[in-house]
């Protein structure tokens, strides 16, 4: 593996309004690896993701993709960079007024000219990959929640992005489909060389796909390592997470609006 990281996050401090959620986060993502960010609810996972995608501007710190700093980019430069990334949102975030096929074709159309016949085939391919062949003509509200989510994945990988971000991919999917998704992530990495950044707390999925695990707690990185490292670690919060132990008392964890 090339040891030069393609994403570097350094001392990131961020949050919403005056409320800081991320406390000097640093992490690297290397080409072709699957990084999984875990942590309890409200630990700052989603905020981290939003900062990394430029949807939120950090208070301080730096985020670089291929050496380019995004925190100081203007909208246009950022948009250009985001076109090389794919994002699968938690609930699918499909455009309600377009068919499934049009949703997936949208980035293909917008990012550059493509022959319509080829585009149609590509849409079919992406739908096949997520196990939804033949649904291109349906409207999003004709799909179940899990199907919408999978169409969201298909849209995220529509233009063969270099990095794909998944926000809680297996939440609300049945175990069979969740396992299919894990396989899809592994296949994409292996066959297409895509780098994957996943935010999740699905233990089974983490054990299966993660090359490296980054655990957040109260806005800080408290652990970084492989699945094997997790089994050996003595960091109590990590142990508690992987052993599924409840808190002794339910502490106030702070309510955070996404």
């Amino acid at each position, binding site marked *: 593996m090339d040891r030069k990281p393609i994403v570097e996050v350094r001392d990131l401090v961020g949050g919403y309004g005056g409320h800081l959620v991320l406390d000097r986060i640093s992490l690297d993502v290397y080409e072709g690896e699957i990084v999984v960010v875990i942590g309890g609810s409200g630990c700052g996972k989603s905020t981290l993701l939003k900062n990394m995608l430029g949807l939120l501007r950090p208070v301080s710190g730096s985020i670089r993709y291929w050496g380019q700093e995004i925190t100081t980019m203007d909208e246009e430069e950022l948009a250009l960079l985001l076109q090389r990334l794919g994002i699968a949102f938690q609930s699918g975030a499909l455009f*309600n*007024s377009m068919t499934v096929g049009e949703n997936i074709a949208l980035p293909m159309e917008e990012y550059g000219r493509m022959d319509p*016949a*080829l585009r149609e*085939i*590509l849409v*079919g*391919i*992406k739908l*096949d*990959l997520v196990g939804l*062949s*033949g649904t*291109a*003509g349906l*409207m*999003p*509200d004709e799909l179940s929640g899990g199907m919408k989510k999978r169409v969201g994945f298909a849209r995220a*990988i529509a233009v*063969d992005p270099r990095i794909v971000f998944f926000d809680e991919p297996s939440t609300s999917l049945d175990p069979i489909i969740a396992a299919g998704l894990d396989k899809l992530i592994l*296949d994409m990495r*292996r*066959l*297409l060389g895509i780098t994957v950044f996943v935010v999740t707390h699905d233990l089974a999925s983490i054990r299966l796909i993660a090359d490296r695990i980054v655990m957040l707690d109260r806005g800080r990185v408290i652990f970084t390592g492989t699945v094997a490292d997790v089994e050996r670690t003595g960091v109590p919060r990590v142990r508690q997470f992987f052993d599924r132990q409840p808190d002794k008392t339910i502490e106030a964890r702070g309510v955070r609006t996404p």
Partner: protein
Amino acid sequence: MASAQESTQPRRTVIALPGELPDSGGARLLEEISAAISSGARAIELDLSGLKRLDSRGGAWLIRAVRTARAAGARVDLSGARGEAAELIELLAGSFEAPRASARPAAGLMEAVGQKAFGAWREFGDAWRLTVDAAYWSFIAPFEGRGLRWKALLTELDDAGVRAIGIVSLLNFLLGLVIAMLSAAQASTFGVQIYVASLVVMGFARELAAIMTGIVVSARTGSAIAAELATMKVYEEIDALKGMGLSVAKFLIAPKVIAVLIAVPILTAIGFVMGVAGGFVLNAISLGFTFDRWWEQTLQAAAVRDLLQGGVKAVCFAVIIVMVGCHNGLRVTGGVRGVGMATTRAVVMDVFLIVVADLFFTTVFYYFL
């Protein structure tokens, strides 16, 4: 000559693929296949042993090439794929078959008309049931001790009534100016400008205050009601209410019905005063009667019958606005897009029904009362 040449052509053609398949390579592959088929090849072998890397776009070109050949009736075999390219092709195996058409049969003319008529009848039924439900929870249930959400009522009154006072006043005032100007132009040819005062007060009492206020409230509150309920439906909040065994009519609709029924007549009264004031301002600027003379004429022209007509219309418009808004909001389907359509539909239906109701009442008062 031609047939002799055809028979000498090979029936089987082998096309070797390059190491990668970017757009240019894909287009060339497609050309080669078309050329092979037009020169009579019935079987094509795609030799993939040279293919080192394949991304999904390259895969799409390959699929397109295979589908093109198969559509022309040729057999296509893929051979020699290795490594990751082979695995990707394996993964995409399903896509090599042309997709089945899954179009829904279009309805015939009679069927379409029938469906429309049936749909309209059903919609009317839904609206009627909703209105009965709303009437019960607004005017009967509170007196049976089944409660009313007072806090929600106050919020709705503020939204639909208090916040609309400014715009309703302004628009009626401006309309008063316009009507006075229009009629002054006519009246001055007969030297009866003082009757402009009568016309303004009569016009606003019977008609204009109610219509103008109705349209403003429809645009402000009718659309808001439709959008709010539609969004709640889309996000399953309505289902949540029903699921908890609570009445949608009691929780969401009754406060709106009562609030709009209180707000619209009061706003209409305010609009009436402002319209008459607009007429007076024109007099002050250009007609030149004293205030006393104008006021005397206004009082003379104002009749309880006219005010009653405006009042009846205002109440009727209020019912139309709130029920059309609720009905359209609750019948939304199709997610976020449906919300926009429900809102549009509510406002258009409001304006239409307001004008129809206005015509009805004006006719009744003109001929029968």
